[in-house]
């Protein structure tokens, strides 16, 4: 699908993308909530946003946003699930929340945080401490999968069969064979946090405590080191096509190619969306296109195409607070942008 975004917005480009209110801000909903925005995920035509006050807010085109009071403290993790989201909180609860406001407590841990959550068409999963817990459709009781240290990230592959778990010293891949979960260990020194499978399932990538990504080719566990970042990588996403893994943590959006047998091995990343030497803190892909949105530490947001290293489109001017979450609704009609101080923008992408 070719988006009309580029044509529509290039005409509005200004000389000082950080300083002036953009067309998207003028026509959008701008709110100062004063509540830190933690994460945002796409739920078909709407976007679900988790906040530091424990609430999930749903933003829908043409409607007022709705609030679901979900957790007692911070929502630490959130992932899209059929018709809603799964969330984990520092109140030890693992919840399923649907757009109509219905909240189901899947599990309650005594005093431990629910750090990570993941969802696939077959399973729901969360982590607390060193253990991951996996629920399938039939069983009310979860299967507990143990790891050598606290879990930093959880992700299912696109088919929803394998679960990747990031922890200290590497990652573990779990797959169910004849009713038993079997593990395979991927080793690399250091502490590994967020984790993702490449869309074709052939690679696994983690964001590390160090300023680096680490990857493995699943077939032979070959290592991919992706380093040289000036800051910790807090955000990544897959740009369709090649595909590219776009990452934060540098003064541009750094995009690693994952085509062919070797992925980014021995190759240089593509860097786009440079902005007055500001650090990129959050990235999100424009589905169906080779374009992405880069959110910066000063609160500004630019759009750029991976194939065009020069052109950028200003989406939001600087607010002084780092971008913590962005999500684009289905068919690319709307974008949600939120920052650490709770300034949010919900606006139409196409005119």
């Amino acid at each position, binding site marked *: 699908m070719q988006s009309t975004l580029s044509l529509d917005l290039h005409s509005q480009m200004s000389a000082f993308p950080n300083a002036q209110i953009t067309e998207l801000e003028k026509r959008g909903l701008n709110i100062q909530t*004063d*509540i*830190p925005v*933690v994460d945002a995920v796409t739920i078909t035509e709407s976007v679900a946003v988790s*906040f*530091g*006050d*424990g609430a999930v807010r749903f933003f829908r085109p043409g409607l007022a946003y709705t609030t679901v009071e979900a957790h007692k*403290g*911070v929502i*630490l993790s959130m992932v899209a699930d059929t018709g809603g989201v799964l969330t984990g909180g*520092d109140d030890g609860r693992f919840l399923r929340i649907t757009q109509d406001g219905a909240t189901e407590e899947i599990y309650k841990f005594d*005093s*431990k*945080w629910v*750090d990570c959550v993941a969802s696939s068409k077959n399973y729901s999963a969360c982590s607390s*401490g060193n253990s991951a817990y996996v629920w399938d459709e039939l069983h009310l009781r979860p299967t507990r999968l143990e790891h050598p*240290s*606290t879990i*930093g990230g959880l992700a299912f592959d696109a088919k929803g069969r394998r679960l990747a778990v990031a922890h*200290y010293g590497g990652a573990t891949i779990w797959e169910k064979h004849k009713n038993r979960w079997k593990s395979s260990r991927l080793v690399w*020194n*250091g*502490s590994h946090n967020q984790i993702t499978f490449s869309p074709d399932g052939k690679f696994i990538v983690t964001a590390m*405590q*160090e300023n680096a990504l680490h990857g493995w080719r699943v077939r032979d566990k070959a290592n991919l080191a992706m380093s040289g970042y000036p*800051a*910790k990588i807090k955000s990544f996403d897959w740009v369709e096509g090649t595909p590219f893994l776009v990452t934060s943590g540098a003064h541009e959006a750094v995009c690693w190619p994952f085509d062919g047998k070797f992925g980014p091995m021995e190759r240089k990343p593509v860097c786009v969306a440079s902005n007055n030497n500001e650090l990129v803190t959050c990235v999100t892909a424009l589905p169906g296109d080779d374009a992405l949105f880069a959110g910066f*530490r*000063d609160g500004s947001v630019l759009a750029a195409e991976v194939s065009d290293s020069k052109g950028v489109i200003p989406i939001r001017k600087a607010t*002084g607070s780092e971008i913590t979450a962005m999500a684009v609704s289905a068919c690319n009609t709307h974008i949600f942008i939120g920052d650490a101080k*709770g300034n949010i923008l919900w606006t139409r992408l196409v005119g």
Partner: protein
Amino acid sequence: MTEEAQVPVTVLTGFLGAGKTTLLNRILTEEHGRRFAVIVNEFGEEGIDNDLVVDADEEVFEMNNGCICCTVRGDLIRILGGLMKRADQLDAIIVETTGLADPAPVAQTFFVDQDVADKTKLDAIVTVADAVHLSDQLGEHHEAEEQIAFADVVLLNKTDLVEASETNEVENRIKKINPFAKIIKTTHCSAPLHEVLGLDAFSLDRILEVEPDFLDSDHDHEHDDDVTSVSFTSETPLDLDKFQNWFGELLRTQGQDILRSKGILNFTGVDERYVFQGVHMLMDASPMGLWPEGKSRSSRVVFIGRNLENMNLLEGFESCKAH
């Protein structure tokens, strides 16, 4: 970008039974107007009376940043990151460590992780020591020495259970390990809380205000691996390049044994005071304003660590003098 207020973090160390939880509960009840988060280990001695108590696992991770290797508390990075996303602002955070914990990974976490350093600041390391048992513990456990060596404040607790002469002996032992620490003698941890909280002991400008008890560097040892301290002063200005070469090499090669270092330096051709502090191989340094009028511009450095006598520290420091 505007600078945001950093939430102060106080670290409570001390052996099991010394009185950490007593102090913690005193802070929480007497400072009830303020909002605290308390991070405890799961082997806590007694109940803690606070809304926001987080269980930690004390996971010590190795980090490799270029040529410097160090250890950090992985669980602390995760927990502080989560707390900083809360909508309700915290006034302070207190981290209670297990009795046998080495404070270095906790302190290093605040140097190494950028998010932790941006949003929180290490206020002080407060060590609760048991006047009855500290002498034995210092002989038997490395960790006891480290907890004293890293302390900004030592609460010498349970002084009602020992003779005054014995208390003085323990106090001297503490001073020998760490001449910087403020020692407060207490029973039931009854120290004034303003001497425990809000100290900002790790900020460079505070180093200017704390006058260490300068000691002779040739005091006697009981064991070779005892933690001791040495300090030097110089009225002759130092040469910036010479100092950087010597000190950089020293931390690189001996950083494992140097637990803490601090200093105020007078360089030739530099009008401002240069202040530094280090934790093992990591250090933080900055010019901190002009020298006060009418006061002598003398350089002072203090090292706390093991095997200091084998590092030729005095010779190294003397060789940095500008001629």
